[in-house]
């Protein structure tokens, strides 16, 4: 804590706070779409931090993480939409979503306790697909999820009469719906980041680290590997569930399409690309991988127009091409991620030194 008191860090924090406050208004200059993109970036920070617990801290490769996001999203959609005619308040639904996702986390974790690496990845991948397929088909004989059409007209987050979906005047300033969500998300994200930082340096965090490094040795030093692994799945899943609920509320619409395998892969890419196990790195990875494709979406077309006088390659396909290339380059030159933890950086340096 003493570190925070020195003037340089205080200045840094003040600067970050100022940027965080100004960001939605700056982004709005480019249209509300950009505020939404920023909101999604924060949502992905949630997801990436949740997955980081499982993959980064405990070393369990999970390729079906988006399933927990789906569970949270559908819990919110079903409890706050005309589909069942239920309209519970968000502060009741988000915890329900988190608890249910947590339950699914344990349900996935318990049969896979003895699996590691590739084998665990295969099972979790299957789990993610099973959840998506269930959501797609649970419309008959009893219509629960409304199948592929998804659930529409989901209630926005609202506190009393204060709705997050509509613009309103605050202190003479017009604050749009997405901007309100932004501040809500930032507040939650700060909470999630603090929880993650505390977790990492707790006894539980050290136990995860031990399991990641050597499971037999972890058992030998007295760690209940079963419970600690389940805890990683459960906590990671809870974060996913909360993120899913907010996603539902923000979009007003969910369908199984939003929870495909590629989403799991993207969240994992955020964790790996940013720096596995390192919280600032994971945040950076999530923000970059959300914003970069959007920048390319809006940038690739006009740039071609300027350079060649016409659009040569369809921006949509070029966008993914550039994105993929960027990922490959990062992994080639920064194998530990863009912002790895000091330990990882040192490990790479030491093993390189050993080879010489």
């Amino acid at each position, binding site marked *: 804590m003493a570190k925070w008191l020195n003037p340089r860090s205080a200045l840094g924090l003040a600067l970050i706070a100022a940027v965080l406050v100004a960001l939605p208004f700056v982004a709005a200059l480019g249209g509300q779409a950009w505020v939404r993109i920023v909101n999604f970036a924060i949502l992905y920070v949630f997801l990436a931090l949740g997955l980081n617990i499982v993959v980064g801290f405990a070393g369990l490769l999970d390729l079906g993480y988006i399933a927990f996001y789906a569970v949270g999203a559908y819990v919110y959609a079903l409890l706050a939409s005309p589909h069942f005619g239920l309209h519970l308040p968000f502060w009741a639904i988000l915890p329900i979503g988190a608890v249910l996702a947590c339950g699914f986390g344990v349900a996935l974790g318990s049969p896979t306790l003895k699996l590691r690496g590739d084998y665990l990845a295969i099972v979790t991948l299957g789990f993610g697909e099973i959840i998506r397929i269930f959501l797609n088909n649970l419309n008959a004989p009893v219509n629960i999820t409304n199948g592929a059409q998804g659930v529409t007209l989901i209630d926005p987050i609202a506190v009393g009469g204060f709705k997050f979906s509509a613009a309103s005047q605050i202190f003479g300033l017009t604050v749009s719906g997405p901007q309100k969500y932004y501040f809500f998300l930032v507040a939650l994200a700060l909470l999630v980041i603090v929880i993650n930082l505390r977790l990492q340096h707790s*006894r539980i965090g*050290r*136990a995860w*680290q*031990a399991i990641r*490094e*050597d499971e*037999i*040795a972890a*058992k*030998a*030093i*007295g*760690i*209940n*590997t079963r419970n600690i692994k389940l805890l990683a799945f459960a906590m990671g899943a809870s974060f996913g569930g909360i993120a899913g609920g907010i996603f539902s509320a923000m979009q007003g619409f969910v369908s199984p399409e939003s929870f495909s395998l590629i989403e799991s892969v993207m969240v994992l890419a955020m964790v790996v690309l940013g720096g596995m196990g390192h919280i600032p790195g994971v945040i950076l990875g999530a923000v970059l991988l959300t914003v970069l494709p959007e920048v390319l979406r809006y940038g690739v077309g006009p740039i071609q127009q300027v350079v060649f006088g016409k659009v040569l390659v369809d921006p949509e396909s070029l966008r993914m091409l550039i994105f993929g290339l960027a990922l490959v380059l990062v992994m080639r030159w920064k194998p530990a991620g863009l912002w790895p933890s000091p*330990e*990882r950086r*040192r*490990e790479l340096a*030491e*093993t390189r030194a*050993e080879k010489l």
Partner: protein
Amino acid sequence: MLEVTGLSVAYGGIQAVRSITFHVNEGELVALVGANGAGKTSTLKALARMLDTAGGDVHFLGRDITAIAPHRLIREGIALVPEGRGVFPRLAVAENLAMGAFVRRDKAAIAADLDHVYSLFPRLKERAGQLAGTLSGGEQQMLAIGRALMSRPKLLLLDEPSMGLAPIMVQKIFSVIRTVAEAGMTILLVEQNAKLALEASQRAYVMESGEITLSGNAADLLGDPKVRQAYLGE
């Protein structure tokens, strides 16, 4: 201190350990020697609860620990140094040692034990900040033993401490094991290098095809023509 009665271990239908009975008294260094595949490591793994037993029972200080959960063992006072050392490669040496005291909360005593481990292994102190994965095999073995000592065990289980080490390092590790034993630690040592194990220990059991075929004073076994022929290459 440790009483093993009729212990069996099986992998599928194959019996790796067939109803063996042995014991370790307090303060003793007892060796379990034998050729590759004789069932030594399976025995130790079963004692450490990393493998399920197929029969028999294990008592430690009068308590039945046959079916105890593996992570509870260290609270009973039994610390395992796993085969292949099992250090935490991406943690520093000092962090590895701190992990050894995971179940303890008495900070002052932990610090004292850390000093003790460093005095046993000055090499580890020199490398306290280095990542364990970058240590040599011998240093990793020292670290694994040091980490086990950090739990302040009553009984130390050593699984093949000489495996994969250079001859000089093997000598060094055995002199450390002797030092630890002389300080009063009770040790059960599983070792393929029969000569060194018999020289270091007081008593020993010789295993063959999952059974104990010989047992007695280490010095007597070392002089036994059968042992010399089968395990010492004479």
